[in-house]
């Protein structure tokens, strides 16, 4: 193979000459590579962490629009918030919302996924539009449901024959009605994740179980559920954490009312800091919510890690 070779290659180098050493990169520069690539992201992180820490700092000031020269007040805000029954009301509302909504979405989502996995003709058509509610902005969902809930002209009272006085957003019902909206939006999220999980499962155990004549329920409990458990947990993490900081659809539907019936922690913080312009009080709310989110996240992620290891061990 005769070739025209120019300068940069090392093809037959003259033997007697001391060969030229190709350029080398010092070790520290090679090690620095991933850091260099991450610098812009770290800057963004810093830009977001700055207001975050500032917010935490507001918690120990008495900063508000009417008091623009704040002074350090220590844990006064925390003492005030933690002894405030309205705060604990918000905690209760938030937890009820998160637990009920997440639970219902899991049950319904797994159910829808199992039904779609049968791949009936009806199912195949519906699967294409499964995603739609999830893609509608929660605000828009809140607006639409608000119109449907309306006692006078809302379609729900008409369809279910409830007359024009039944109030879906009354003190007693409002929390359940906003949970229903959350279920409407986010059940597809669970269903999509779980359906993908079911479809990724190996077929052999199910065929064996069918040959053994196991009942549907037994197969589901002993086989399907343990195997899709990691997928369900991923969904639980996303949903539960999102529910803790729920805001959009509640705000447009009820703005926390009636009274404080749907006043979740983020709604409460919004009222305090943006409507009443008491930044320190709102930040205290948020800081406490953040702690709740943080603890929950750590717990859920460790559960997920264990489940994934167990699932991997079961397959390997």
């Amino acid at each position, binding site marked *: 193979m005769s070739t025209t070779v120019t300068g940069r290659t090392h093809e037959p180098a003259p033997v007697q000459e001391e060969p030229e050493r190709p350029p080398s990169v010092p070790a520290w520069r*090679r090690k620095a590579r991933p850091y260099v690539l991450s610098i812009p992201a770290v800057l963004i992180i810093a830009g977001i962490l700055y207001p975050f820490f500032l917010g935490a700092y507001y918690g120990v000031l008495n900063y508000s629009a009417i008091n623009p020269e704040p002074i350090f007040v220590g844990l006064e805000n925390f003492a005030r918030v933690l002894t405030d029954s309205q705060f604990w009301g918000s905690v209760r509302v938030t937890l009820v919302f998160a637990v009920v909504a997440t639970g219902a979405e899991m049950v319904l989502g797994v159910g829808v996924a199992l039904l779609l996995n049968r791949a009936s003709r009806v199912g195949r058509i519906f699967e294409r539009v499964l995603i739609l509610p999830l893609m509608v902005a929660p605000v828009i969902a809140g607006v639409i449901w608000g119109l449907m809930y309306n006692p006078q002209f809302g379609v729900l009272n008409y369809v279910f024959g409830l007359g024009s006085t039944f109030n879906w957003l009354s003190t007693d019902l409002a929390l359940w009605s906003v949970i229903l909206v959350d279920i409407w939006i986010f059940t597809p999220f669970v269903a999509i994740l779980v359906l993908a999980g079911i479809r990724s499962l190996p077929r052999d155990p199910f065929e064996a179980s069918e040959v053994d004549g196991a009942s549907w329920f037994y197969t589901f409990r002993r086989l399907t559920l343990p195997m899709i458990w990691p997928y369900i947990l991923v969904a639980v993490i996303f949903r539960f954490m999102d529910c803790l900081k729920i805001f959009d659809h509640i705000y447009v539907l009820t703005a926390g009312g009636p009274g404080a019936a749907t006043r979740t922690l983020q709604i409460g913080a919004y009222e305090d800091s943006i409507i009443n312009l008491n930044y320190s009080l709102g930040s205290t709310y948020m800081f406490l919510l953040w702690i709740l989110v943080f603890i929950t996240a750590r717990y859920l992620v460790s559960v997920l890690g264990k489940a994934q290891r167990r699932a991997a061990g079961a397959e390997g």
Partner: protein
Amino acid sequence: MGTLKVQGLRKKYGKTTAVDGVDLAVENGEFFVVLGPSGAGKTTTLKCIAGLLEFDDGWIEIAGRNMSGVEPYHRNVAMAFESYALYPQKTVFENLASPLRSGRTGRYGAEERRRRIQTVTDTLGISHLWERFPRELSNGQRQRVALGRVLVRPADVYLLDEPLSHLDAKLRAAMRAELKQLGELADITTLYVTHDYQEALALGDRVAVLRDGRIVQVDTPEQVWHQPVDTFVARALGQPEMNLLDGRVDGGRIRVAGGTVSIPVPPALGVQQRQAVRVGLRPRDISTGADPGAEPPGRLRMRGTVRLAERLGRSVEMSVDVAGTPVIVVVSSDNARPEGDEVDLDIALEHVHVFAGGEPDVDTPRLGAAGIELGKQA
């Protein structure tokens, strides 16, 4: 073309040591094979040489140039990956053209590129696949394209990582023959890594046996085969594995199989009275056709009962019970005996390897052979 030197190469992944002080010196134009079981550190060694992995200690020299800190694209090294590593979004032709287009393996016009690719694909028999994508190829074809991407360019060293491992037995044999030809043709320094002893013996000018990140032996294929340095190398080469019989030196003879078999010890072996030793017999060195009777000089005779006979194509693998010690023997089907038959085993003394004794799972060094060894001048 160029030489390749590796000294004291060490690489850890977390707490496990993958490569533990490897030294290699490959001559210009040599076809050098590294043989080792999976996990021995073969691929890690190759990738360190190519500059693809950072290593902890050691020193690499290619074509007389120190390669510390040199980027892979400046090393003038070509490598075939075990996974083929073909660009999935590119056709066979574009895959092969990739090294020629980078400008670092030489400058080529479109015409010259085409000509080189044509030559290589003709040699490998894949010229009809130019326009195909890797996903449209069989494993054998992908393997050839991966080799082609190495051969199409000039380089100081070719690094080939298990290039035949994913092929079925038939194709592997054919490709082995082809590689042998290519190696002779290209005459480029080649470091070839494999777990298959047959490839190593067939292809290598020299063979290095790697175990747990250390090189155990470097020799020509003949030497590695006839004079393995220890029981690990001896067992690594040959299928079925070498028979290892525990014995003891007694009155100038090694007694194995409960003392029923005794082997004369040449004084050059330097073993002591009562010393524990192991006797190694390759299954294919043993024959069954011997007449019963006196042991001719230079040969070892053993009598046993066939416990198991299994046909492997044209030959038969038999497990022969010699006074309670199983001995595996492979003979041609003409010389095979049915199960339950008494059989006289015969082996030349120069094929009787003697190793130091030791615990069952510990490999021990070779002391020599019971007969005069061929090709060894002590």
